[in-house]
Every structure is written in structure tokens, then in C-alpha cells.
């Protein structure tokens, strides 16, 4: 098994498109995820990025960490910009103004830029069927502005705008299910991924790259700063998120659901919650509520995979 993994790793391109010199925090899983994904997307890729951590850490004028054509316009419009870029490249090729080649457009945004402010633009672009990949790098809060809640923040998590207190438990609603919402747009390829499982990530990026239409990757991006964990633990917490069922790895390909890694038996959710400062305030009762919900969501996911 180990040897097979090594083979898989060495099969993948050495070339890096997210290059060193960026200002990501230590242990940032977001830059790790993109570094790995871009290896697979390869050279003929155009990146359209939303405002957020990634944009700020990677492109302070006059420097850049992207060895690919890259554009940032605003926070809420990565999907619309990508739609425009895709249209522009297509018509220029159709008119013979640029050489015809398989250029792939990739839009990248955080969970705020995806599930909140960028939701409408994303929905529009997905519904229109533009051929591009949208990546949500989900670190479960507005980390760029100082850890405020988003609709992707999990139940019970402490953020600066969902603080626990005498009357509050922290974030009081459940994480918005973006992959399922996007799948409801009849998007041909939707998948979750986590850089703690790089080969799973590679396989999904490959599928997204080959999709003739829109594709959507929802990548859990552990944020040591916002989650209040040691920076050396980012990869481990990504694994725990998957192993506990907090962030299952699955894909929806032309409407067919498939779990790509089954962590059964699930580890107790408390193993994932306990070391994170953002969950430190949780009572045993709250942990039990989360456990119950996660277990039932996992069962539902398995059911969806069976019947679809």
C-alpha cells in the first residue's frame, strides 16, 4: 500500500505553479491544497481569484506567487470573472486571434466568497454551464479579516462574530451544504477534498479538469490561526475531520454519488473537536448534539450513495 502511494506521488508533475515567497501562515492548508491542485491543472490554466487570504498572501504588488495567468477583481465575483475569461478566451480562439489549445479556467474563493457574498455569482455561473472549475477553499470562517463567522462555519465554533457567552454557544447554525447545493444546479462534477488526502485530491482535480462543463471542488482547508491549533497539526486535523465524518470525502459525478474514502468506523467527533481552541468552550451536551448530527449526516450520505 505504501509503495503504491509513493508511485502515485512520483507520477504527479514536479512542476509547481504556486511558488515560494508567499506570506501564508505556517501550516496553512489552503496554500497546500492549491499547490497540489495546480500541479494537476497544469500549465494551461488561468486563475481567477476572489479577495481573501489567498489573494492577500500571494500577490502584494509587485510580487506574485502564481506562475500562471492570474486575475483578481473583487470578493464576490470570482465565478463571474471566470465566466468572462472563459468567454474571452473562447471567442479569441474561434476568431483565430490566439492559437487553439485546451486552456482551463479555475476560479478560487474562500468559504465567505463562495457560500455567502459570492453565492449568487457562483450559482449564476454554474447554472449557465461555463466550462471552468470553481474551487472553494473552505477554512470555515472569514479568516482574512480576523476570524468572523460565515455560513460555512460549523455549529458550535467560536469566531469573533459568533462568540460563546452566557447566552450563546458560539456558531448557532449548521454549516451550509455547498457541494449539495451546487450539485442541485446539475453541475456534472462536484467533489469534496482535503489536502490531508492528496491522492484523493489529485484524482478529483483530474476529473474536474476533464469535465466538459462546470465543475466544483469544495476543499477543506485547515486554518491553524483561526482554529486555534498548532501550525504543525494542520494535516492531522484535516485527517481527523475526514475520519470523524465532520468532512466526508465524496464526489457527485453526473448525479451519481460516491464516497471516495470511507472512514468507517467513524472516530468520535470529540477527538476532532477537543484540541481546537475554537471549540474549547463546548459542553459535553453540545458535543453530543454535534455527534448525533454528524452520525446522521454520514448515514444520509451513505444512503444517497447507495440509491443514486
Amino acid at each position, binding site marked *: 500500500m505504501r509503495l503504491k502511494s509513493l508511485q502515485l506521488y512520483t507520477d504527479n508533475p514536479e512542476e509547481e505553479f504556486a511558488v515560494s515567497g508567499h506570506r501564508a501562515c505556517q501550516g496553512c492548508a489552503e496554500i497546500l491544497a492549491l499547490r497540489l491542485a495546480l500541479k494537476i491543472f497544469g500549465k494551461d490554466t488561468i486563475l481567477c481569484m476572489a479577495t481573501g487570504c489567498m489573494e492577500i498572501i500571494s500577490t502584494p504588488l509587485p510580487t506574485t506567487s502564481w506562475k500562471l495567468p492570474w486575475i483578481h477583481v473583487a470578493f464576490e465575483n470570482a465565478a463571474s470573472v471566470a465566466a*468572462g475569461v472563459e*468567454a*474571452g478566451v473562447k471567442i479569441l480562439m474561434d476568431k483565430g486571434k490566439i492559437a487553439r489549445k485546451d486552456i482551463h479556467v479555475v476560479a478560487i474563493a474562500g468559504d465567505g466568497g463562495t457560500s455567502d457574498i459570492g453565492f449568487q*455569482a457562483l450559482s449564476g455561473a454554474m447554472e449557465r454551464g461555463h466550462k471552468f472549475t470553481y474551487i472553494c477553499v473552505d477554512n470555515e470562517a472569514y479568516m482574512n479579516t480576523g476570524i468572523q463567522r460565515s455560513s460555512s462555519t460549523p455549529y458550535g465554533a467560536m469566531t469573533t462574530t459568533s462568540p460563546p457567552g452566557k447566552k450563546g454557544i458560539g456558531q448557532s447554525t449548521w454549516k451550509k451544504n455547498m457541494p449539495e447545493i451546487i450539485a442541485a444546479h446539475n453541475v456534472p462534477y462536484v467533489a469534496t477534498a482535503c489536502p490531508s488526502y492528496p491522492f484523493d485530491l489529485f484524482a478529483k482535480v483530474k476529473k474536474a479538469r476533464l469535465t466538459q462543463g462546470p465543475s466544483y471542488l469544495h476543499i477543506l482547508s485547515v486554518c491553524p490561526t483561526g482554529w486555534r491549533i498548532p501550525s504543525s497539526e494542520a494535516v492531522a486535523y484535516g485527517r481527523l475531520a475526514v475520519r470523524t465524518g465532520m468532512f466526508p470525502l465524496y464526489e457527485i459525478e453526473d448525479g451519481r454519488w460516491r464516497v471516495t474514502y470511507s472512514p468507517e468506523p467513524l472516530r468520535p467527533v470529540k477527538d476532532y473537536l477537543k484540541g481546537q481552541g475554537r471549540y474549547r468552550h463546548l459542553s459535553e451536551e453540545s458535543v453530543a448534539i454535534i455527534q448525533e448530527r454528524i452520525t446522521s449526516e454520514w448515514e444520509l450520505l451513505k444512503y444517497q450513495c447507495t440509491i443514486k
Partner: protein
Amino acid sequence: MKAIKGVEVSIAASVAAKLAKVEVIAAYPITPQTHIVEHLADLVADGELDAVYINVESEHSAMSACCGSSAAGARTFTSTSAQGMELMHEILFIASGMRLPIVMASVNRALSAPLSIWGDHSDVMAARDTGWIMLFCENGQEVVDAIIMAFKIAEDKRVFLPLMVNLDGFSLSHVIEPIDFPSQEEVDAFLPPYDPIYTLHPDKPVTMGAYAMPELYTEAKYAQEMAIRNSKVVVKEVMEEYGKKFGRHYNIVETYNIDKADVIFVALGSVGENIKTAIDSLKDQGKEAGLVQLRLFRPFPAEEILAAVKGVKNIAVIERVMPAGAPNGPLFQEISTVVHMSGAEVSMTNYIVGLGGRDVLPEDFEDIYNDIVSGKNSELQDEKNFTVIGVRA
């Protein structure tokens, strides 16, 4: 012999975009802009225009997609009005800051609340400092000519800025006028294909829209400011070349009967035609009024305005927007800044007309002239700094 056709001005605007061979159109429908984007959709669907038409889900995305396609190197066009322009507002700044030569037909309309679909300049005046070059049109022929010239101005390597062609909602957009369309060959000879300096292409990766630390932001904005200021020269050059090639001559500031005028009206847009009618009628009565009309509003043609109003005793600034707590309307503030900084001794008055599609008639301007000349208006103006024509108590 040239074929002059009676065409709805909106349709004429989309034909002009077609003649300019636009390559990407990203648009969202909003009254009174709808006929422009509908006709463009028809032209694309019929194969008459080889372009990608993106039916975006909002004006915010329309302008965002335009940024993307323009950055990719495609000639890009859109159109909007009123609330749509407000929804684009954020991205208007970004399009100009990123130096993307997008052209937009802005069909001017009142802003909510109360909801009004009819014409005034509330939308464009709220967007006047977004870094876009702004042309204003008086009639349909000007709209056609301005859209063709717009691409040449915006895409000039000395400029590289987005450009807004403004036309009044309904009172211009929905009227049928005789239009002289240039031929495709003539337009091709005048307007070369878009030749961008940088594009998003994997063979030569560039980073666009990076962020600037305080050490660089000021310089970037200063460079942008100089570009829009210096674009006036290019606007003039393009208008001159257009006049030579197509026989229709335009100036960035147009004047009418200013030589002996006691009162000079300063105005933007289609209201100019009514003012000219009033001027002709006053002349018949032995009274002399003139008009200074701005075709170019951004960059602000200060020298040309000063030259036109030189020596006049009274200036009446006519505008179609409520000042919202400001001392005067925006056009008045700009004209008075220019005039008073020049040291000219002149009486200036400010009139707000035609809000939310309210009719404004030649007689209104005759009344304004008579009030100014007889000194009747000075009392009112002292109190409020501006007069709203036709407001009921």
C-alpha cells in the same frame, strides 16, 4: 447615396456595437436599457455578430464578466441603467483601476426610491468619479457615432480606460430617429481590432489585480488619474478623425449661439435640443441666449468650457439630478469651480429639471432666461442655491 433609416435609438446603439465587432457582451436586462441587450442577443443568435453573449444573473456579474473578458483580450461591451449601475458600482472602480477598455451604453434613469423607470441623471452622477471616461449624447446619431468612437478612445494605448456612452432613458433610448449608419468597411478602416498590451494567457502569465501596500497605492492611483486627464487629447483626436472620415464633426464641448448671449445654458444630454429650440424662440423675440453642451464629461473639459463662457454675464447650469443635501447640483459645482478659479466675474444659477422623466419643455428655458435677465430668480437662488423647475409645493 447614403441610406438614412428611421431606427429606434436603442436598436441603433446595438447596431453600432455590432459595427465595432464586439466579441463579448455580458449583460443583465434593466429598463430602459433592455432593447439594446435584446437586439444584441438577436444579432448573436442570428449569427450576424460573432460574439459570446453571457446572460449573467446580475449587473454586478455583468461588469465582473466584462472585466474577465476584457482582461482575456476580447473587445467587450455592456449596457445598464439606474439600479443596475448602482449594483455595478463597486466593479466600475475596478474596471478603471485595472485599466480595462470596456465600453458601456449607459441609458440614464432615475434611482429609487420612489421607484421610477424614467430618465434623469441620478445614476450616472452617482458614478461620475469611478474613473470611466464619460460621453453624453444629444441624439441617436450621436449615440451611434459615440459607441464606434468609444472603442477607439478606450483602447488607445495612451488611455486604456473604460468608457461610458450616456444617453437619456426613454426620451432618447426609445425614440425613433433618422440614423446614418456607416458601412462595416468604413468602421473597419477606422477602428482596428483590440490590441491589448497584456492578456491572461498561459504562454505569457501575468498577474492582474494584485493588491498594493500603502507604498504603491498612491502611485498607481496617480498614474490612473493622469491617464484619464490625458485622455482628453485622444478623445479630441478621435473625434477629429471621425469627422474627416464620416463627415460628422464633434467637439468635446459644443456651443450654440454663444457670441451675443446674455445667458448661457450649460447642459448634458438630450435636453440640449429643447434648449436650442428655446434659444431660437428667444432670438425671434430679440433676446439672446446660448448653449454650452458637454459631450465629454469625464475627463472634465475645463479649458473648453471656460473658452466657451468667456465674457458672459449669466450662466444657468441645467441638470437632471437632485443634489441630496449638497450646496448645488454636481454639474453646477464643477462648472462653478472651473469658472471661479479662472477669476471670471459671472452670475451663476442652478436649475434642476426633468427628474424621474418629468417633461421639460422649451418654454421652461425661456422662463429661466426671462427670470435671470429680469433678476426675478435671484431671491430664490439666494435661499436655496438652486431652483427645481415645476415642483409643486
